[in-house]
Structures are given as structure tokens and as C-alpha cells.
């Protein structure tokens, strides 16, 4: 390439690059599928320095890791999630009894757990999306849950590359609605199911069912500070994981008997060093 003379000059190359950027900037997303592979190369190129910077930053900012800082509390919280998952499983088993009568029953789903380091990406600031250094070659698949502190669910793997995966946080604007059960933070009160959707400001909000308890049919009501656990049928392997805390309770204007809750996760996805990826283990389930 010569700066002067000839067809290919530095000026023309620059003009072509600007034109290409302009075209790519206005192309519909469906025509930009190829950028994933190019982006993967860019991520790998930047990773050595980025990892070093993030290692320093994580230690300085005391970023969240896959384990609870206090192992005993972490273990207790994991057991609490297991109990809640079992409660949901019992409900499911009741439903499966009906299916069994019809000869149609599903195997119990199990999960494999992989620890993955989190890349920092420019988009993390605004979109809160996580890029985790575990990919298809490690057995990660779409639908895996990203968890920290043993039971705090951050999000779901939405895209998998050969060596890394993208975790879309539960509070991301593009995450769909999910079902949760809200339990009292302390004590063994009954849970109330809610369907909550992302609001775009780092929370989820949605209406719940009207439930009563006792002979006098007293309404079960949730309060600020109660805990929301995952109970979505599409994410059965991850039931019982903590989605967040109830930060606001109001009456549903469309149905005053029902409550409308706002749930905020305890963990900010922008301050996470490592996560556990809970991958549904189809092989074990089919054994």
C-alpha cells in the first residue's frame, strides 16, 4: 500500500473503513450474526491485560465470588434454598402423579456446577451483561443459571461461544417474565407466587396470586424485606435460588385483592469476579 499513487492509498483505505463502519452501524441486527466471531477474537486478544486489570480491580472493590464470605452462613443459605426447592418439587410431584396416571412422566433434572471467571466488558456498565470464561467446550449450554454466594441467582446463559458465554441478568430489560415465590425473610410462613418482569432500572415487578391460610381464610400478604425464590416451570433445575428481596409492595390496581411487588437482587452484576454456572445435566437425568 502506498500513501501516494496507485489505486490503494491510505486515504482510500480510511474512507472505505469509515464507509464500512457506517454501513454496519445501520445494518439490521439479523444481518450482523457474523460479528459474534469477530467479537470473540477481540475478547481473547484483550483478555490478558483485561484479566490483570480485573484481578486488581476485584480485589480492591471486594467483588462477589462464587462462595459466601462466611462459609457457614453460605451453607445455611444453600440448605434454605434446597428446602424451598424441595417444597416446590413436592408440589410438582403432586402434579406428576396425575401425569403418571397417563403414562407421561419427566425425569428429575440435575445440574453440574462450573466456576467461571467474569470478563469485564464495556457493555457491562449499561446493560449489566456478563461475559463468563466458560463455554461450549466446558459443557455450558443456553439456559444455565449463573449463581454467586451459593444461592444468589444473577441471570441465565443466553449465548454460548466455544470458550465463553453471555449471561443475561435477571434484571436486564430483555429478560422475560419469570415466576417466583415470595417467602417471609424469617420464619416459615407460606409463600405467595408472583410473575415478575424487568423494569429496566435494576428491579423486577409484577402481580401475585391471592392466597389465604387457616380456617378463617386469612389472606397471605408479603412485606418489604421478604425473599423471592425462583419457581419458574421453565427453570425447574434452578428452583429455590434467591432472585432478590421485596423492596416495594402495593395493591394491584386491576385487582385490589392481589399484591404488586418490586424485587431487587442483592448482588450487583457489575461487581462480580466469579460465578457458578449451574448447567442442567441431561446425561445424568436420562440415566
Amino acid at each position, binding site marked *: 500500500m502506498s500513501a501516494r499513487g496507485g489505486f490503494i492509498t491510505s486515504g482510500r483505505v480510511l474512507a472505505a473503513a469509515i464507509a464500512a463502519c457506517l454501513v454496519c452501524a445501520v445494518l439490521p441486527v439479523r444481518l450482523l450474526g457474523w460479528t459474534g466471531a469477530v467479537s470473540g477474537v477481540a475478547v481473547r486478544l*484483550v483478555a490478558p491485560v483485561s484479566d490483570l*486489570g480485573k484481578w486488581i480491580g476485584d480485589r480492591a472493590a471486594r467483588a462477589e465470588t462464587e462462595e459466601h464470605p462466611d462459609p457457614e452462613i453460605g451453607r445455611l443459605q444453600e440448605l434454605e434454598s434446597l428446602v424451598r426447592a424441595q417444597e416446590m418439587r413436592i408440589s410438582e410431584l403432586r402434579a406428576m402423579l396425575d401425569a403418571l396416571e397417563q403414562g407421561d412422566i419427566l425425569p428429575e433434572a440435575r445440574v453440574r456446577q462450573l466456576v467461571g471467571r467474569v470478563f469485564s466488558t464495556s457493555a457491562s*456498565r449499561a446493560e449489566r451483561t456478563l461475559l463468563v470464561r466458560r463455554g461450549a467446550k466446558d459443557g455450558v449450554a443456553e439456559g444455565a443459571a449463573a449463581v454467586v454466594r451459593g444461592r444468589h441467582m444473577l441471570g441465565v446463559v443466553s449465548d454460548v461461544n466455544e470458550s465463553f458465554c453471555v449471561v443475561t441478568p435477571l434484571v436486564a430489560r430483555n429478560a422475560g417474565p419469570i415466576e417466583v415465590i415470595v417467602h417471609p425473610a424469617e420464619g416459615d410462613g407460606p409463600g405467595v407466587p408472583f410473575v415478575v418482569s424487568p423494569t429496566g432500572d435494576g428491579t423486577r415487578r409484577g402481580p401475585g396470586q391471592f392466597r389465604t391460610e387457616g380456617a378463617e381464610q386469612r389472606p397471605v400478604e408479603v412485606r418489604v424485606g421478604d425473599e423471592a425464590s425462583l419457581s419458574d416451570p421453565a427453570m425447574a433445575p434452578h428452583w429455590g435460588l434467591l432472585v432478590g428481596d421485596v423492596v416495594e409492595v402495593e395493591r394491584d390496581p386491576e385487582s385490589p385483592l392481589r399484591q404488586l411487588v418490586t424485587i431487587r437482587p442483592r448482588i450487583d452484576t457489575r461487581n462480580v469476579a466469579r460465578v457458578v454456572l449451574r448447567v442442567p445435566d441431561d446425561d445424568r437425568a436420562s440415566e
Partner: protein
Amino acid sequence: MSIGAFVIALWIVLGLDEGLSGLMRVGGGDVAPSLVLPFVVFIALYAPARAATGAALAAGLLIDLLTLRALPGGGTAEIPGPNALGMALAAQVVLAARGLVFLNSPVTLVVLTPVAGIVWQVAATSLLAVRGLYDPIGFRAAGVLGSGALSVLYSAGPALVLWFPLRWAMPVFRFDSPHVARWSGRR
């Protein structure tokens, strides 16, 4: 300008920018300084115009490729172009201003970084907002522009820190513009 020196410096700056953004963020987490921006402004202050534009384009393109955008209905996408063109425009602002400023002062980099950054943010946000009209990507221009503007103002701090190693490494870049001959370590 030495392309090799630029590539290595960009690699280090981009890596640190990615890695340290979590540590330096403020204001609810959406405001974090850019280390790439002051680096691009520094290059635009001293490099020949065409090289400075190309360098800004390359840096912006890398930012685009490292930026995952959450799509409505699930999934993510990388959109090459908005930050690349924004950075190229920001470089033009610096190129226009460099004849009017003291090239050997860190204050120049500290002042020009937010100015160029605003141009970068407005251009990139406008492009994404325009494409949102026909291809929704769940992009909220007002919020992104607000946090982006604060981020580029915040970038003035890292600009001051970056000035000294970049100024020290200036002979390595071999800037060959006539206007910087006495500052670039070349005689």
C-alpha cells in the same frame, strides 16, 4: 506514527479500561471513566491527521466489538460502527483544536478529553437511536447519553494520570507531524 507502538499501547489501555471499569465506577454503577478516550485524544494531538483518524476508528471499532447489547426478546449482539464513527468524529475535534492549544501541557489532554468525549457520545448515541427507529435494540438514548456524558467528564481524571506515561513513551510512537517535532523527542 509507529503502528506497532499504537497497537501495543491500545491493547494495554483497552485491557485496563475493561478490567478496571468495575473498580472506578460511580453513581449507581453506570458511570465509569474511559481510558481509551484520553489515549485517542493524545494520539489525535500529535499524530498526522489521517493516522489519528484511523487510530480513533480502530479504537472505537474495538469498543464496539467488546460491547454486548441486550436485544429485546433475549439474546445479545455486537454492532460495529457507532463507537468507531463517534471516536473518529471526536478525533476530528481534537485535530481542529490542536493548533490552538499548548501541546506540552497535561491540562490540554484533561480539557480536550471531555470535549472530544461529548462528541463521541452524541455521535454514537445518535446512530444507535436512529437505527432503533427501524430495528429496535432496546436502546434508551436519554439514559445512555446522560451516563455517557458523565463518564466522559469523569475520564478527565484518568487523562491526567495517562498523560505522564504517554508523554514519556512519546518517542516510541514516532509522531512525524511537523507541528509536534519539538515535543515528540525527534530532532
